[in-house]
């Protein structure tokens, strides 16, 4: 199932988890210690973040560590940067159109 990244980061707990694992890879237990919620709901958040391809799992011995997949976060920023450019260029075209229309009226 493909999930929506915005849905993933809409939740404050999930955003906090991303901030935690951005610093270092962590086990689910270590992550859970930072929150006053059940281990079960932490697992659910981790599952959603993994399904959004924001977290990667890495096995060390018997432990599973979660780490942030930076490229996915950068992808959002690059989409937004492109959207910003589209709008910027569109408005510059409008500047020209307005300039022409103003001169016609005179």
């Amino acid at each position, binding site marked *: 199932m*493909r999930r*929506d*990244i*915005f*849905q993933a*980061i*809409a939740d404050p707990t999930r*955003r906090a988890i991303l901030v935690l694992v951005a610093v270092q890879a962590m086990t689910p237990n270590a992550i859970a210690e930072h929150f006053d919620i059940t281990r079960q709901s932490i697992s659910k958040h981790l599952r959603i973040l993994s399904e959004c391809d924001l977290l990667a799992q890495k096995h060390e011995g018997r432990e599973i560590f979660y780490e942030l997949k930076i490229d996915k976060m950068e992808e*959002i920023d690059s*989409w*937004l940067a*492109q*959207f*910003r*450019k*589209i*709008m*910027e*260029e*569109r*408005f*510059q*075209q*409008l*500047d*020209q*159109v*307005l*300039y022409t*229309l*103003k001169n016609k009226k005179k």
Partner: protein
Amino acid sequence: MNLLFDFTVDKAAKTVFITREFDADLSLVWDAFTKAEILDQWVAPKPWISKTKFMDFKVGGRRFYAMVSPEGHERWAIQKYTSISPKTNFKMFNAFADKDENPELPGSDWDYTFSEQNGKTKVSIIIYNESLARMEKMIEMGFTEGFKMSMNNLEKLLATLSQRQ
């Protein structure tokens, strides 16, 4: 002339906020956003052109338009006006569509607010996207050419504009 351009994003709320100033009076800027013949002159990223098939600017009315590539490839979209306060604000729902006017959901909600001060008109736009997938598509939608304007070009344009002052 330096015209204000502000672009901020609230990722969690899936909302983009844009504010832009234009060097023209309110009624002209309002027309530029609400009349098909003017919209078609500026909304398409070059070398694409905008072609409005119909536009009925009233509450419940729709605009059905295409971005047309130099090869003649058409990408259709439909806008539905949900609220209009003349020369102050209008809101619309925007979705991509097929050539038979069937919208492809989800779409996005656009809210435009206009105000004039000292002969300049400020337009504030709030864009709410239901899903990231749509945002992605909005950008994929043949706009690649539009991105190519380099910072260099932007600086040149700004220089031209400031000379006019």
